[in-house]
């Protein structure tokens, strides 16, 4: 047990925690946009999965990080658009469509991965240039903090900036106001000249891009490979984190870090060889999510028109 309680252990734990939290953070930030506009995007998992698989394929065959990132985002957006067309234009039920498209994503990714690589016992690695850590000069030399926050992958720095930008856009811009109005009181928004359906489309595109990027982070940077159902319900954990973080990107950032650290903790403890069956450690992130939901769900105030279809009244 003495190996556990050292400063080095904590630094590596927190650094890993920060890394682990990124895919969920990106997806959750995307989901804030969707839900603030009134779309309960249960398909988040599918969008992450698509991003993870497509970016991995592109990365494996082109060895180009930029192309892979783009591919990951675009595939997330396409998945989100499929959901948007069904729910916004054709008024199908959001939860049902989300569940259905999750299964589609699971089949689609597994199908094409198998076509590309066949049945393998050792999944190939992408080893993209830039998938390791990039230390920021000077800052990374700060004791403890430097190792945790400034010796990460470049996508981590971008993600943090994205979250801050998202917070600004949602709460401080005209666009954000229209977005929130579409999710709180679409009828009123429409009379004020907001095109609710268009706002919902835009929010779904943003959400798909961020979820796709989250999936990309998972397959190309965190794990360096793709396996079937690689996301393992991280999309649903992100949904829980959005509630926990009260639809606020900065709070969601904090919640994701807490979550990522738990995930890292269970991996570390397994590596150190704690005398607890590994299954109980593996359970930890999911149990934490349930506890999180129990603590916050009662007081949480979701956007008033969340998951409600909006139909323009015909004139």
């Amino acid at each position, binding site marked *: 047990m003495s190996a556990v309680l050292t400063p080095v252990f904590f630094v590596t734990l927190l650094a890993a925690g920060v890394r682990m939290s990124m895919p969920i953070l990106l997806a959750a930030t995307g989901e804030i946009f969707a839900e603030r506009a009134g779309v309960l995007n249960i398909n988040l998992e599918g969008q992450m999965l698509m991003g993870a698989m497509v970016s991995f394929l592109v990365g494996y065959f082109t060895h180009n990080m930029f192309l892979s990132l783009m591919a990951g985002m675009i595939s997330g957006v396409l998945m989100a658009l499929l959901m948007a067309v069904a729910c916004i234009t054709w008024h199908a039920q959001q939860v049902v469509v989300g569940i259905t498209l999750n*299964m589609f994503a699971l*089949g689609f990714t*597994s199908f094409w991965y198998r076509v590309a690589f066949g049945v393998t016992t050792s999944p190939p690695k992408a080893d993209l240039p830039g998938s390791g850590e990039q230390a920021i000069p000077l800052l990374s030399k700060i004791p403890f903090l430097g190792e945790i926050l400034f010796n990460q992958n470049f996508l981590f720095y971008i993600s943090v900036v994205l979250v801050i930008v998202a917070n600004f856009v949602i709460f401080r811009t005209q666009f954000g106001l229209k977005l929130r109005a579409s999710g709180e009181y679409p009828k009123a928004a429409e009379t004020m000249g907001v095109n609710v359906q268009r706002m919902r489309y835009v929010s779904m595109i943003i959400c798909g891009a961020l979820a796709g990027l989250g999936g990309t982070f998972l397959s190309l940077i965190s794990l360096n490979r793709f396996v079937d159902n690689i996301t393992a319900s991280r999309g649903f954990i992100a949904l829980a984190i959005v509630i926990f973080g009260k639809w606020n990107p900065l709070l969601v950032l904090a919640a994701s870090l807490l979550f990522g650290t738990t995930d890292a903790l269970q991996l570390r403890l397994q590596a150190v060889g704690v005398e607890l069956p590994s*299954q109980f450690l593996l359970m930890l992130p999911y149990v934490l999510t*349930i506890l999180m939901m129990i603590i916050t769900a009662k007081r949480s105030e979701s956007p008033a028109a969340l998951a409600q279809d909006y139909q323009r009244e015909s004139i």
Partner: protein
Amino acid sequence: MAKNSSPARRALGQNALVLAVSIVAAFLVSMIFILALGVSPVDAFVSMFRGALTRKYGLAEVLAKATPLIIIGVGVALATRGGMSNLGGDGQFYIGAICSICVGLFLPPSTPALVVWVLALIVGILSGGFWGGLSGWLKAKFNTSEVIITIMLNYVALYLMGWLVHGPLQAPGGIPQTQALEKSFQLPKIISGTRAHAGIFIALASALLVWWIFKKTTLGYRIQTVGESPDAAVYAGIKTNRYMSLIMALSGAFAGMAGMVEVYGVHYRVLEGISSSFGFTAMLIALLAKLNPLAVVIGSLFISALTVGANSMQIDMSVPTSIVNVVQSLIIFFMLITPAIKSDLLSSISKKRHKKEVA
């Protein structure tokens, strides 16, 4: 359409039409997948059909695969009618499987098989019901989303089962699985030399039971009211909070029962990977069946036939079996959007006509 046809009959006809269009559309899209592999879709579908429906083995396999799907599916349909999305079928199945096998493992081999089966069934129902009811209770008490909770509980159940088959319940020999059931405790086969077993009758009985609950009982009526108009339910004096727990417990009970049936009918032991996302597939089947328990039976047979056919397609043409997930999700996707597209088309046509008339 004949003028004297009743509205109900017309609705049925329309549903059938939508279903047919959706199935055709889904197959057309998956044909593109198959073509992209350089395989002739016709050959692929012939291999699929042959594998599932022309041999005794294939047909038996369809029955065996449909059994757990029917049982979980009618439970999911019941929950969805009650306004709850039960995505925890897998977790409830695992819990039911692991608890019910203990009955067979710990009773003396001389116990009459019927006693073992009934006890195991009850244990499966209670344990699955507990696991499902948990998420309903949490929703009633803490307002948590049952979608997220059921999915999280799937993982808790998965790892709980993993720990048991790696640890306390592991059979000697190093493989992560429990000991096998006594031969006399295994459910009888209905077609010898195959995996089709008597559990299919339990599945059919479950479907009839749920059909009867909704057709004839106040319980069914109340569940339906809670699902369709919770406010009216409160007004009618139904304790909706209590019903949330009850609905999820009933739904979970079916999944737990499926766990028992699968263990006693097919595997005779519990091992990792005993469910291949039955819960999600059952959810899709319930949607496909429009929440009608009898249609769930047909839907399960259909999806199982696709799965068995896809296996032979993978062997013959190396088309990955995951194509089944693509096909079944697309069928439902098209089912969900077809009515809207149709009404859009109709209204645009009538608008054009209107314009012409005005002009």
